[in-house]
């Protein structure tokens, strides 16, 4: 028994530690290495992920064997300025352990998957760097002991998600889709950040993991605003209604990253936030009502849109939206354990389905594509079916359309800046420069063409 305390002290920090080490290793190699680094990088990643995996399994065993206790993982007291302290604290408890375990196992497997899948790809090192960063972010979310620390992980997975969607940046559409996800994440980030500020404002402690009794929310308006913000933070992250549009479009990166983000882990981050929040605090009843309503809406939405999908990855994305919706409902009704079980099953299954999506042409049975039959096919009024079909298709195309309104505003701004630049370079600098006759003639013809274009655009 004397050796157990040692394990308790060493194993949990190793979950994070080995990942950090590997991350630094890959970063250094990427920045300063030369030649063929593929082998070295995969070795480092193997070390990091398997180390994290083993220590997660070890810590899980300790925690499940022992009584209901909280294992400290990391406790850093940072002093950003004199007189101020920021406690960066990570911990493990019974609620967190399934999430941490699934994260470690899935990321480990996906790492092994990517070793051969990404072999020879020009973005090999970049991919593994982002994979490690994502794993770290996920573990931080699940072990975060306060809102601020959770926010760190929240940002890491948002960033890696956006960067991996646009992994093949040669194609413009990947950047568009990445932007769409990124915009949804910003909503979520803002809500979460406000939330932790409000806690401080209300004088309460935003402690997310502790062995004490359930905490109390600040009094007054804040007791309504904070739960509402938590839901608002969770919805876009878990692609729940009405923020689900980005998820199907996010399947642009390499398959393993799609599997782990949008099937396995990242899509459950919002769900975890909700679960953790209601687990740790005494929350008002409306919170649960809203959860159930949103869950039902999302499940219906995902299920309806799945009926008109034609490609496997969108299909699986709407499946994920539906299931996370169901998990919201389960939490809403207070079935915490059921929801966790649901998460574990869904994370593994959905990741596996996305990873093996390529077999669908030849082994269509194995992914269980449903046979074509539904109530609507048997409807007496085909017009009604037609209408439902059109609605589903329209909604799905709405999800698929580019984030125009936001982009338009940005575009307008950038075109104004560009016009200013042109005026500045031509009018101010151009006048002063000692261009020879020939050069200015070249510039003239160019500016003539551009002004003609401008006129045309004004006309149209």
């Amino acid at each position, binding site marked *: 028994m004397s050796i157990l305390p040692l394990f308790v002290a060493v194993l949990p920090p190793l979950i994070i530690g080995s990942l950090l080490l590997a991350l630094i290793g890959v970063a250094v190699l990427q920045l300063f290495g030369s030649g063929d680094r593929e082998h070295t990088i995969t070795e480092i990643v193997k070390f990091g992920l398997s180390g994290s995996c083993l220590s997660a399994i070890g810590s899980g065993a300790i925690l499940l064997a022992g009584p209901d206790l909280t294992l400290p993982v990391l406790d850093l007291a940072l002093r950003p300025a004199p007189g101020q302290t920021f406690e960066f604290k990570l911990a493990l408890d019974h609620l967190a352990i399934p999430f941490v375990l699934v994260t470690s196992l899935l990321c480990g*497997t996906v790492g092994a*998957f*990517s070793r051969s*899948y990404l*072999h*020879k790809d020009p973005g090999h090192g970049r991919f593994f760097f982002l994979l490690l960063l994502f794993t770290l972010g996920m573990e931080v979310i699940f072990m975060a002991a306060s809102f601020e620390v959770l926010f760190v992980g929240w940002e890491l997975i948002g960033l890696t998600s956006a960067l991996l969607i646009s992994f*093949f940046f040669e194609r413009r559409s*990947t950047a568009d*889709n990445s932007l769409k996800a990124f915009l949804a994440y910003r909503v979520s980030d803002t809500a979460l950040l406000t939330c932790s500020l409000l806690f401080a404002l209300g004088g309460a402690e935003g402690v997310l993991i502790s062995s004490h009794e359930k905490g109390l929310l600040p009094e007054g308006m804040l007791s309504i605003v904070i739960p509402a913000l938590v839901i608002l933070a969770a919805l876009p992250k878990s692609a729940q209604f009405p923020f689900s549009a980005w998820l199907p*479009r*996010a399947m*642009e990166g*390499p398959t393993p990253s799609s599997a782990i983000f949008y099937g396995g882990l990242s899509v459950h981050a919002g769900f975890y936030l909700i679960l953790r929040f209601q687990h740790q605090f005494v929350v008002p009843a409306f919170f649960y009502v809203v959860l159930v309503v949103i869950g039902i809406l999302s*499940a219906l939405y995902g299920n309806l849109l*799945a*009926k008109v999908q*034609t*490609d*496997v990855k969108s*299909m699986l994305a709407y499946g994920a939206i539906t*299931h996370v919706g169901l998990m919201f409902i389960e939490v809403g009704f207070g079935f915490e354990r059921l929801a966790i*079980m*649901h998460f*574990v*099953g869904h994370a593994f*299954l959905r*990741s*596996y389905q996305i*990873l*093996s*999506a*390529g*077999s*669908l042409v*030849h082994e*269509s*049975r*194995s*992914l*269980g594509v*449903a046979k*074509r*039959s539904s109530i609507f096919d048997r409807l007496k009024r085909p017009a009604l079916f*037609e209408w439902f*079909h059109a609605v*589903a*298709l329209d909604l799905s*195309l709405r999800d*698929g359309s580019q984030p125009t*309104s936001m982009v*338009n505003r940005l*575009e*307008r701004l950038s*075109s104004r800046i560009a016009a200013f630049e042109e005026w500045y370079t031509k009018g101010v600098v151009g006048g002063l420069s000692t261009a*020879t006759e020939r*050069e200015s003639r*070249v510039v003239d013809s*160019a500016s003539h*063409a551009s002004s003609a274009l401008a006129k045309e655009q004004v006309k*149209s």
Partner: protein
Amino acid sequence: MSTVHEILEHVAHLLPTQAPLDVFVHHNTLHAFEDLAFFEALEDAAKVFGARAYMADSWYLEAYSRGRINDHDLMDALAELGEFTGREAAEWIRAGLLALPGRMSREQVLWHLCEDHELDYPYDRYGPGKWNGAVAHETAALVRGEGAAQLRASLREETPLGWTDEDRRIADDLAEFLHTPEAHPQRRALRYLWIEALRLSTDLALETRRPADVVTDEAVDALARSLTLPLVTKVVARYLDRGMGPWKMPRAEEGFFPAVVAYLTTRTMLKPWIMEGIEEVAAEYQGIESVVAIESLLKKQAVSPEQWHERLRKETLSLKGWAGLMHRVEAHDDVVEYPRTSRSSALSDFIAAKMLIEMHARSRLMSQGAATTGAMRTNTPVDTVADRIYSRAYHIFRACQLLGVCGGDLRTLRSRSEATLLDVFHRWDEVRRGRVWHLAFEKNFQQRAFSAFLGHASAVDSARRSAARFQVVCCIDDREESFRRYLEEMGDQFETFGTAGFFGVDVLFQELGKEPAPYCPVIVTPKHVVSEVIKKDHRDRLSLSQRFEETTSTISQSFGGVPVTLRSSFAVVVGGALAFFPMILRTLFPRLSHLIENTFIHKVRLEATEVLYDSPASSVDAAEADTNFARYSLEDMAERVAGVLRAIGLVSGFADMIVFIGHGSSSKNNPFRSAYDCGACGGRPGRVNARVFALMANRPEVREALVRRGISIPDSTVFVGAYHDTCNDSVVYFDNDRLPSSHTSLLVELRTAVDYARARNADERCRRFAFATRTSEQSSLAHVEGRAHHIAEPRPEYGHATNAMCIIGRRALTRGLFLDRRAFLVSYDSSIDPEADILVGLLRAVIPVCTGINLEYFFSCLDNETYGAGSKLPLNITCLLGIITGYASDLRTGLPQQMIEIHEPVRLVTVIEAPLETVTSALQRLPAVLNFVKREWFVLGVYDATTKSLVRVQRDGSFAPWDAKHALLQETYSELPILARNSDHLAFFSVH
């Protein structure tokens, strides 16, 4: 003026003809251009499709520095293309090609010169060359006092564009060095050369001013197209969906265009931004034929009738994958099974719908006006005049160093108005350079391929033929070359043959529990049916294995039903985590997965089933009754057996055991799996074909019928059917229980030999695979077994990626020649074919198949984004029949980047071993093949074994003797040490 219908018919020829991915048959990607000579076709197609005509300059430069292209090849290519106008000009072209820098800005050029010390040390990437000598010469002249005046004049001369500060500093340096020319000869000479090169480049720039870029409303079109891409692809995918989404598209049976119009007119208030208000617009097209709709759409957009063709071609090719599939719906029934009721073709339906949607998007964009102008601006960097001048000057600067041309020489050259020498710097575009480079690249291979064949074949005594105990007949596939080579290395007791892998057995095969499918070349329509049934005494065992398969699939089905039901959610909660086990198994322990599947499914199935192929004795089964297909009659069988035996030249000297090995490929999680299967079996594994052939050839009645046809097979000869999986290198033997007991020991011997050969074969393949541990043949074999079952393996095998050659003739002439898995080997014996009938039959089948494979790889390699499928990593399966990239894209056709990454794009080098008269008369009967070779889509040589001479077919169809410039053939005692070290393509050599 032609009608819309006619125009579309015409344009449709340009579309890819790829079938749904469960059957992949290689074909010439540019089949629409086959009327043109090869290079013309390449360049025309590049314009039509917006593709690259040749590989990038840097690619060829890399090949040059590896020695894959040499100066001989370059000169040969120049001569053949008519670019050779003299020794000096050719030298300049060579230097111009070699010294080409990438695209650079002025700043980059100056950075290279100043920071990389390129003004201090000469450019010697391709050896010192003549530069140092030229510098010494110039220095001596300067010391003597000659040429200094000219140099001073050069420094004084003002350049038309003005100098940058850097240029001025370079000139000042030069003026300094001029005082003591012998002190810093290199630095002085390089600076002088740079100043002159810059001046020359400026002159050339003034001579060829590019027209200002014309800006049209193409930007709006492009934006509209990109915004509507998800929409257009989604509706067409809905129409073609084979069952991915559970809902069928309403009104699909009325045709695509009516269905789309019906959808667009349905009011939901939920249309995406870009489609708002389309209900009214689309309502006008209700009940209108799509051809009429296209016409009215063209008129609405004020396209004049002369431009219709151009416009419709653009519309069609902008989504050529989907358009091709829609076109396929017309002619084939393998895509969707809608009854054709509307008079318009599916393609015109598609174009009409696409134009309608895009037109609306365009008008929406226009109404938004300024809001979207930002998006219409191009993002591509435009190089300025100065950038062009400096990068060309840099090009000249480097080329002159290769040529040994100093600054003074360049100056006189400029004034001597010998402009043609300088053409390569400003008149040669990428296409012209690519043409020379590419021809040189291929010439090099042709040289080596022909000389290897000639060197080896002429040394062989072709009359010698020893009695073999085993005769092994494989497919002509290039992947079987190494397998056959290793079998033959076991000694003279093995003789191998190659013939199209369906072995004459053209059947509709009904596999157990599957839909019947044709197992024969696509051009053949099968008339006979073969079905797989369970042997009577094996029902229990098989049903156990079947139940195992069914249970696993039911489990995964109940989990995976994506539209979530109560049952599937329950399954996910309770057992979803079980998915972890197959995930781990197939990622980390793929070989274990292979062993499990092999033991519990494949082995059981192999032993428990038999095939029904003959009539009428066993015609009790119902399958025959309700189809139009018949079983084989005895005459049918004899005809097929005799045909194959004659084709491979095996009409006497039969061994005791003759093995027919079909082939196919198994891999997991691979949408392109069919592309690795047997092309002669219509993109399917050739399992049943080998099995049925052996069964037929073993029947005494068939043997009797064969005697009547002049082929008498001794009773001691037994045929065995087998199947080679080219991905995991396993070989299985069929119907062992029917083998006479006298031959069982022979089979054991065969197994031992084949086990050796497949392990060696696996090892040879593994030299291409970075993750293989090649400590022994067995570890290589284990690696490929695991690789085939790995779900994360984008390259389960490399398929035909090494194909480059085709040899039609007796194997005796190439036996012992190491061909690096690059050659299709077709057995043919001209001595039994005086009338050339067999040869005609062979060429008619072999040439389209082999060139189809070769050209598909060629074009997918040439421009992987346009002709190929792009990277496999973000691929997404759509409609259960094809693939798209990411969330929404055109349907991708051709081969993915991972399949062609080791391919060398060379046209097929074909050699026929036969007397010249036989080949001539065969070609005369095959005008299509003759034209194909005359237009240079493949290269054809004819080898006559009696005179030991090789001739090559020319562009005009005549034959010219091939001159063996360096017909040196390496010889070795074993290929193994060479294979152990290398992972690249290897030279051909003789093994003794």
